[in-house]
């Protein structure tokens, strides 16, 4: 009987110890709380990825919309025979095209912006906002505060957008006031406004910007450059005697300058040029076959002061003519013995 009491006591103690251990482990696990926290963290991380993707989408939309706006703005020059007055005018037109699809912001269509698909930034962002709401349960609202563009390279533009957006989800909310997002747009593939405006009178309808891949220049490379109708940077200044004691400087033009048909000092580093192929135009013996003088009817006056300014070149055909500056400016200089002043002034 004594032993039975002890046995009962030990059994009871064993059960109590087991219960104690069980309780301790169960309490330590706290699985319901941890799992909820992990689940919430995961949800927020996934939602955060979606919001970051939204910013990436904004940039891609701006690139698409901006490039199309530039196409439209160039077409507008051709349609109206009117260049933009300055970089402020360019920026206003660009902003209007990208934001509203109207070049003046109210009534005049910006070509290409709404022809097939609406490529304004608000239209593209509305698509993603609807998708966020329908598929991801994220209520996304945004407001475009400002849009702009500037030239940052011979063939590159920087475009930016200032945007405020809010994203609401049952697990988290994001509020991003006045965020500035920037990206670049290449001018490659856009039509050259100078060609579009002045080319038809010379027999050339258009030319699109293409950056030359040539890095080492010689006669052969220059001939390839001519035939490809590519573009290259050109920092030189052509000075032409006017025959009356004065002279005029002519400069290659950057993309922004080609939109205004004027030259501005701030774009000096970005000036580009292309050559005119003789077979595409009516012959002109009194000019250099570089776009910014040939298309704009700049003629050398042979009788006064420039007797040896224009040359044909061995291997380039008898109609292709270049001026002294282009022949002699490093690194584009051509072999001196190939300059032929055979009859041109």
């Amino acid at each position, binding site marked *: 009987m004594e*032993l*039975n009491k*002890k*046995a009962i006591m*030990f*059994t009871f*103690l*064993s*059960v109590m*110890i*087991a219960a104690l*251990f*069980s309780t301790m*482990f*169960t309490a330590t*696990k706290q*699985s319901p709380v941890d*799992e909820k926290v992990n689940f919430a963290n*995961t949800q927020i991380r996934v939602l955060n990825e*979606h919001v970051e*993707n*939204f910013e990436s*989408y904004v940039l*891609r*939309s701006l*690139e*698409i919309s901006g*490039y*199309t706006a530039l*196409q439209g703005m160039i077409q507008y020059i051709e349609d109206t025979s009117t260049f933009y007055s300055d970089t402020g005018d360019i920026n206003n037109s660009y902003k209007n095209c990208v934001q509203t699809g109207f070049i003046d912001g109210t009534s005049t269509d910006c070509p*290409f912006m709404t022809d097939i698909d609406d*490529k304004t930034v608000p239209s*593209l962002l509305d*698509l*993603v906002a609807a*998708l966020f709401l329908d*598929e*991801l349960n994220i209520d996304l609202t945004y407001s475009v505060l400002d849009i702009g563009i500037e030239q940052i390279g011979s063939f590159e533009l920087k475009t930016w957008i200032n945007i405020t957006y809010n994203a609401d989800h049952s697990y988290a909310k994001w509020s991003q006031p006045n965020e500035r997002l920037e990206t670049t*747009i*290449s001018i490659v*593939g856009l039509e050259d406004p100078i060609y579009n405006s002045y080319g038809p009178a010379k027999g050339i309808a258009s030319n699109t910007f293409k950056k030359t891949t040539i890095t080492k220049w010689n006669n052969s490379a220059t001939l390839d450059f001519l035939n490809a109708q590519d573009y290259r940077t050109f920092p030189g200044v052509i000075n032409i005697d006017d025959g009356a004691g004065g002279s005029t400087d002519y400069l290659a033009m950057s993309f922004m300058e080609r939109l205004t048909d004027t030259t501005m000092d701030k774009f000096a580093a970005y000036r580009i040029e292309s050559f005119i192929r003789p077979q595409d135009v009516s012959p002109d013996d009194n000019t250099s076959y570089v776009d910014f003088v040939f298309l704009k009817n700049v003629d050398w006056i042979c009788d006064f002061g420039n007797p040896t300014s224009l040359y044909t070149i061995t291997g380039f055909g008898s109609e292709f003519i270049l001026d002294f500056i282009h022949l002699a400016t490093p690194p584009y200089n051509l072999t001196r013995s190939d300059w032929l002043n055979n009859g041109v002034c």
Partner: protein
Amino acid sequence: MKKRGSYFFVLDAMIGGTILLISLVIIFNSYLNTADTKQSYVLAQDITSFLVNAKIHEFIDAVVLDMINDGEIANIDNTYLQQIAIFHDNDPGTCGIGDNLNCAENLTVDLMNAILPIQYGYNYTIENNGLRTVIASRNLDSFETSDFALASRKLTFFKLSESEIFGPAITEVLIWS
């Protein structure tokens, strides 16, 4: 009598130990179940991360190489997510790989076979312009009886050209076992 008492003590200790052992087994089993789900979630995330980040030139097997050689894949700098969406967008018809799958399905099946263990089922869909398209799937029949199912959804968009964009669309990879 003393001998009988020691039997009782041994028996008591065994009963107590058994109870303790059963308790521990129950507890640790519950931990193992949780870890299994987490592991599967990581797997689902890894797969979508692979699709989003891996470029074609970084992972080329025989099927992909055939697609490149046949000109069906034009840009090996595209990610796999992009390439599948491009195939879906272009509706290119059949690929020249000996079966009648279209290119999007062919590429997806090939990829998923390479990166997702065979015991998992999956369903790869793209929703674009309000239209949901099943690109490829495996073990659809087992979905109803699966222990778990995880969906990973990615906002999908990319430039088709300087003035054209694909999307925004949602690519969903549903994985189960």
